[in-house]
């Protein structure tokens, strides 16, 4: 009832006042956590991502809003001395794999194409909602990537790479379609800062582990696991998040997080890019860590003002209306039945059926067959010709 009462204010006053800037808040938080490297010796990249997954989940982002991409399965690797687990610390206190983990893209599904498809949401109808980034202009997104990279590229799966240009274009497409409100891009790889150097879309804060021509190092190895278990940059980020951001109501800012980086500990020069963010460095530094790592929702508590009775009456009124509506609907139904018009059930009751995804029919089926037959025939002729030449 608040809005209606405001509207009765003299509206004439309004023309004198300048339009106030609308400070839009975000309503949902999403996280895209990507490890890009395969093979047992890259155990630490998987552990990096899983530790971050655990942290954002602890801070309240639900699984349905976390896209986790794991290109290899370290937990079930035959070389793993602790089957079914992944640890990011030699003390092995926390099993990151646990029993409540939802991997959205795994194994060979983690490709550059799928990653760009995920960001731009150019996916087929058959893609389940849980594997899509269903963000809108009120969503804050955390994008964390780790793997092996170089100057302006990041390797995927030991087979292909994503370039800084493609990543920048993907973010631009997201911005054009209003698919994010604010975006925090974090990357832990060698020469990481080059990956965000090509971004040109607004509202992005980017941070990376190392400058151009600098390597990113692992933090420590677990002798029983046999490989390094976490990278330095990620380790110190997690250290901050675990010790300083203990509960969702934390008021720590991104400035605090970036100030906590100690180059002598990280062994490389982490970089931060502010210039795309409105308000530049100052505006960005004041953003809360929880704006990206947590899931803060601005809930509206009913009857917070204490006008209990009025509210109850409203409800009663609505209840009455609904009852009346139902009566009317019944009367209508009766009238319809009297007219002996068969009533379609789907029209009045919301259907519970969920439509199956349509399977596309390949219309170029015959052409493909012909090409295949031709190729096979050609091969056979070549082989025959060869044997004929041999024999003569």
């Amino acid at each position, binding site marked *: 009832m608040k*809005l209606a009462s405001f509207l009765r204010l003299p509206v004439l006053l309004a023309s004198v006042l300048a339009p106030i800037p609308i400070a839009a808040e975000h309503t949902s938080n999403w996280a895209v956590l990507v490890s890009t490297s395969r093979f047992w010796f890259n155990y630490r990249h998987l552990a990096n991502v899983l530790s971050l997954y655990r942290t954002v989940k602890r801070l309240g982002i639900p*699984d349905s809003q976390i896209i986790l991409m794991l290109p290899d399965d370290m937990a079930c690797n035959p070389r793993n001395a602790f089957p079914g687990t992944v640890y990011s610390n030699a003390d092995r206190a926390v099993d990151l794999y646990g029993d409540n983990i939802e991997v959205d893209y795994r194994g060979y599904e983690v490709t*550059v194409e799928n990653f760009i*498809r995920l960001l731009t949401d150019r996916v087929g109808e058959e893609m389940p909602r849980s594997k899509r980034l269903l963000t809108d202009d009120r969503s804050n997104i955390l994008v964390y990537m780790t793997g092996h990279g170089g100057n302006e590229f990041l390797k995927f799966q030991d087979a292909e790479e994503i370039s800084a240009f493609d990543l920048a274009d993907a973010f631009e497409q997201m911005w054009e*379609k209003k698919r994010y409100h604010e975006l925090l891009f974090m990357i832990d790889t060698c020469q990481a800062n080059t990956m965000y150097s090509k971004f040109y879309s607004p509202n992005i804060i980017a941070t990376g582990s190392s400058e151009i021509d600098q390597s990113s190092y692992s933090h420590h190895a677990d002798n029983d696991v046999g490989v390094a278990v976490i990278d330095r940059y990620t380790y110190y980020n997690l250290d901050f998040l675990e010790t300083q951001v203990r509960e969702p109501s934390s008021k720590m800012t991104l400035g605090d997080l970036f100030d906590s980086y100690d180059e002598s500990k990280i062994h490389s020069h982490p970089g931060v890019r502010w210039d795309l963010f409105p308000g530049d460095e100052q505006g960005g530094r004041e953003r809360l860590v929880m704006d990206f790592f947590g899931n803060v929702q601005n*809930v509206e508590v009913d*009857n917070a003002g204490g006008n209990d009775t009025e509210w109850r009456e409203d409800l009663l009124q609505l209840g009455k209306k609904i*009852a009346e509506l139902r009566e009317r609907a019944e009367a209508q139904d009766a009238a319809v039945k009297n007219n002996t018009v068969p009533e379609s059930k789907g029209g009045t009751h919301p259907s519970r059926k969920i439509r199956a995804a349509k399977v596309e029919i390949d219309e170029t089926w015959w052409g493909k067959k012909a090409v295949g037959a031709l190729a096979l025939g050609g091969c056979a002729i070549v082989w025959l010709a060869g044997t004929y030449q041999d024999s003569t």
Partner: protein
Amino acid sequence: MSSTPTAPAISEAEVKDGKIERGEDAPAHAVSVAPKKKEPPPETPESIRLRLFVILSFWAIVLFLGLPIWWRTTAIYRAKLPLDQMMDWADGRACRPVFPLRISIEADSLQDHEAQHLLRTTQHALDDLNDFSAHHLRLQLSPPANASITVDGLPTGGSDEEVALVIRLLPGTESKADLQSYSPILDVHYTPNQIPSSSSSSSFLATYIANTLREMFAEEQAMISYLLSTSSAPPERSPKALVPEVAESLAKWTTRSIKYSRTYHLTFSLFTPSATPSSWDIEAALEEHMKPLLQSFSSISNFTIDTQVQLYANPGVNGNVLKKEDLSGFINAAEWPLSPSIGGAPTVNFIIYVGDMEVEGGGKSWLIPQWGGVVIQSDISDLRPAMLIFSNQLMSLLGAPESGSLPLRLMTLVRVRSAGLLLKASGTMGSLARLTLALPSISIPKSVADGIYTTIEHLRKACDGLGGTEGLENAIIAEEAAEKAFFEKSMVGQVYFPDEHKIAVYLPLLGPVAVPLVMGVLKEVKAWRKRRRVSR
């Protein structure tokens, strides 16, 4: 002639029959020995011509067959898009959103000329009050009373145009207005002395009706003007600035309401910290309290419903009194199965938590913007209060206005949603046009162009028919087509390849082929020049 000046010591005998006598000092001199060069027989002009033809034919194949094939197969298909039209829509030049609301007056108790006079003066009063031209209330006498006359003297648009509200003028003892709850009818009672005389230019009754109407539609007007002001419409068309408080509550409204979808998925969940209660009478409660409301929404959206009971579910925040800032952590997202991946529709969650905690200040229910609602209730034998709260929350989550009767709120929602969808689809057109220009190496299949033409066609229809359910239907189709065109599956892939990559791909293929071709030309040119020199 045969021996070089640097090797005078070699005798003619040593090279006589083409082999070198291998003496002790022979290796030292062997390098400088050159056999006598024997000139090939002169070429016939025919063979020179033949060789020229061979080279030319190879080049011809490369240039006229190879090059076009390479060009064709590596070219990126880019369908032609109506970029200007798309930008026109995005910038608001193609459509001027106007919401003409027809309000019909039933004045059976009045004389014909009296009624018309009242109509004219009321319309004047309304026009004086209205300062937002896009939202326009137009009065008309209801057809049975007078068939073909409107305020402006123009013929009526026919009965197919929807009437937003019917005003029934009834004689009474005091002047008052009653909005009927279940149909868009406003009963206005008037006293006999309030009938305007034909000479006066204004009357109490006319002003009274105009003010009542204005108050009724103020919220809708504010909503639409807010939507237009946040879009990229030309500034001269955007309405006057809103009062800060109004703007603030409208910003809250947009924050709260879920993005439009044709179908919503409602999930009703019962969470309990212990083993009881393990069942609830949700089926009947939904049938009783939810279904009628959902049915009335059926012209806007459809709904599917699911329910679940979860035992031993602990909230993310504990304690008997919850702090307001902790409430967003109450939903235990990590453990409660509230995954929305059922079907393709967005999920609206409604949760009853069995417990007796309360929020600071005494509230026991709250709304989470764009997500759903939570009610804390210790006794679930009566689900009516919870269902009533949920229906209220659903109304605000769907973006319905807060005041007015249910039919009017729904009709307002239809108009607001069509405006929103129209603006969204237009914005998508602009995004797609800008992307097409910004990324020249992205492919644009024909389906995208088709989708854009469909969108523009339906946008045009929606723009012409704004205000009714038909406008909404067209806006929905336009928005869906626009989304489909923008998110075309094949418009993806890596578009950036560094030059090093291109060289690395082409060199192993083209190098071995190009060397003989180029060398052949060079040698032929050389020979030709030599021949010319000789002949001169």
